[in-house]
């Protein structure tokens, strides 16, 4: 959540006063710039408050009267951790040590991404009555879906950290800082795609079905249940194509940041892409550029289509 609140507003959302959208009121032709700036800041603040209120509403509605439900949603990934560790490490012998931690370090951010995008996709449609009757900044609808997922993600990440520390694995180190740029790329990419699909889904209702299928396939395009080295071994110099998927880059960076394979890697296949940081930062830069480009597209599409939301719903 704090993540979200500190992230820059999507491109095009004016934060600073621009002449077009912060003109003086009627009869106040000579409004001084400081007032303009103040008003613009106030507007921005009101939007963030609205976003926060919507996220809070979603949380409240979802976990109303059931603290257990909330605890469960945190424990759920940890249960998965146990199951997958059993299946992959003991039954299938995948050769990835501490498989559960490996899996979770990538899966949490992926779940946050796919959860955001698929609930953002239906966000405008689900609030049809509101969109048709009240004028408000519509982008808060998909953004609140992202925020909702982000809150869960952060809490689950915290639980994962606790588990790692309890198991006595290595966690605290400079590599942990990698989650900051990786998180920034992830949130940019998630917001971009969320805006795009939420707008498309208003007019083209099959978007959500297509998205579900796409996310299912996309899951396997990230090295979460298999080692990244497997891809490197197959694709060799074409690995960069695989890494054009921003989520794959985010996933491997999170793994690098959180996952510590421990001393004895028994396998010839490297689990992690690289033991340094530059590799990740470079690829994050590319993924970030892709995400920003997509953000521009998503924002543009949203802005163009939102004028017709009330009519299409």
């Amino acid at each position, binding site marked *: 959540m704090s993540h979200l609140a500190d992230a820059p507003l*999507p491109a*095009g*959302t*004016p934060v600073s006063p621009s*002449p*077009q*959208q*912060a*003109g*003086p*009121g*009627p*009869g*106040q*032709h000579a*409004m001084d710039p400081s007032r303009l700036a103040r*008003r613009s800041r*106030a*507007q921005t*603040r*009101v*939007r963030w*408050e*609205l976003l926060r*209120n*919507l996220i809070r*509403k979603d949380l*409240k*509605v979802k976990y*109303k009267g059931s603290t257990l439900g909330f605890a469960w949603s945190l424990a759920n990934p940890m249960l998965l951790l146990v199951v997958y560790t059993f299946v992959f490490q003991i039954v299938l012998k995948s050769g990835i040590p501490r498989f559960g931690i490996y899996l979770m370090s990538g899966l949490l951010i992926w779940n946050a991404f796919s959860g955001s995008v698929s609930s953002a996709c239906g966000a405008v449609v689900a*609030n049809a*009555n*509101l*969109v*048709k*009757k*009240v*004028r*408000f*900044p*519509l*982008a*808060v609808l998909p953004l609140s879906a992202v925020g909702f997922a982000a809150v869960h993600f952060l809490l689950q990440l915290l639980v994962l950290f606790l588990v790692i520390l309890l198991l006595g694995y290595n966690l605290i180190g400079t590599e942990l800082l990698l989650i900051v740029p990786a998180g920034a790329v992830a949130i940019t990419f998630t917001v971009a795609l969320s805006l795009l699909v939420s707008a*498309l889904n208003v*007019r*083209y*209702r*099959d*978007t959500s079905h*297509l998205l579900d299928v796409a996310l299912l396939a996309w899951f396997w395009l990230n090295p979460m249940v298999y080692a990244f080295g497997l891809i490197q071994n197959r694709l060799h110099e074409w690995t960069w194509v695989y890494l054009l998927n921003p989520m794959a880059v985010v996933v491997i960076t999170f793994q690098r940041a959180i996952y510590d394979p421990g001393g004895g890697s028994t396998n010839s296949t490297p689990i992690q892409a690289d033991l340094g940081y530059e590799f990740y930062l470079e690829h994050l830069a590319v993924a970030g550029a892709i995400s920003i480009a997509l953000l521009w597209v998503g*924002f543009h599409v*949203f*802005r*163009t289509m*939102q*004028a*017709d*939301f*009330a*009519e299409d719903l």
Partner: protein
Amino acid sequence: MARHSSAYQRAAASPPGGRRPAAPRGPVDGATPVGPAALDPTTLDPAIPAPPSYPGVAAPPPGQLDPWGVPDAGDSAGARDGGAAPGGVPDAAVPLDVPRPIDAGEADSGSAVVIQGTGVSKRFVSYSNRATSLKERFVRRGGPAGDDFWALRDVDVTIGRGQTVGLAGANGSGKSTLLKVLAGILRPTSGQVSVQGRIASLLELGAGFNGELSGRDNVYLNASLLGLSKREIDRLFDSIVDFSELRHKIDDDVKHYSSGQYVRLGFAVAVHVDPDVLLVDEVLAVGDEAFQRKCLAKIAEFRAQGRTILFVTHSLDLIETMCDRILVLESGSLIYDGNPAVGTKLLRQKLGSLPAEGPVSWEYATVRPQSVAFSLDPGGLPLVQYDPGERLTVSVELDVTEGAPEQIYLHTYIVGQSEVPIWMMETPPGGLAVGPGRHIVDFSVPHLPELLGAFAVKVHVSDAISGAPVTTRRFEELFGVSGPQADGLLKVDYEARLRG
């Protein structure tokens, strides 16, 4: 009845002389849209559903540019999407004591125009012509644009600051669509819209309430959707709760509220947004009488504060008592813009005439009542105002086509307010033998009775031999009779005496 007929009479005094009111210009229509009125909604903030392209936005006249060199676009959206002037002061600095403009006198002050729509049209694309899936989007492109529906056609509306305007019309005439276009929720297909100041649109009360949340949470959520900051809501919260009279239930889930309580809370939030412009759809119809009174009192208060109000209601009485002006929509066209008394009368006629249509619409009938004229004598000069005792001739022009019955029978009803038939005149027994062509049938009344009011004519044509109805036409033309009595339609002889 007395009251209606007096409204009727007032209007009839200005000769209606057989014209269909072609949207007479309203009070501020003479206002030249200057400066702030000509703002460009395309520059609105993208995070709100600002129509990205209203075509052909008028350039502001020179000298009206703001310091930024662009037409002021700040308030049409800037204010409403959260422009929280701290302390809830309206951004547009509305002078609260502006005298409400009744005539065009103040039209030359630039900031007087608050709502300006020019040539606003709205077309709804029918679902069959619209790609509703990505698959279709790429497979089938640009189908025939046949069944599109024009919900608004070329509507021009200019509303000055501080006016209270009623918007009326039959169901489906486009009232809600117009409000949504003005509120920026729908994008007009063509035309421009600009609104000054913070808008509150009460299209539906409590839209966006979530039943799973308490009243308190919903107040915060709803107010923040309407653009209030947390600080403002904190400050207004008690006042909102007091207004809704729901303090005892404010921490209950909204799903346990009765529909009246729900609406009350919605209204309480909406009116605390402190709008410069209030757009109200038919929301006042819900709720009990006490609540309605409260709503109306609030609207009256807004009115007294010089805010601009545009509201939709089916209560024509309300429009007559509360509004400075009425806009009447019919099938998306603005057919009247002006005096409430005249507009409501027109609307009553229109609404009343609806069930009176004959088996075949007159345009397609074999005998078409083309026009009606009023004069003293057959063929005389047209006249609309008569005194009791005078002679009146009602001349009905018929267009008879091939295939019409050989003998036709005419019933001519003189109808008053609410389509009440006052009297009926019919052709002599056996009917009239008419061939194809134009014919005029004169009905002469030698001495008009002591009537008061304006009256219209309804002509019913039937086959004189079989008795089968051919068509019915209700004419819009009115004639007036100015009897001496102050109240009531008819003067009758009577005596009043105390007994026992």
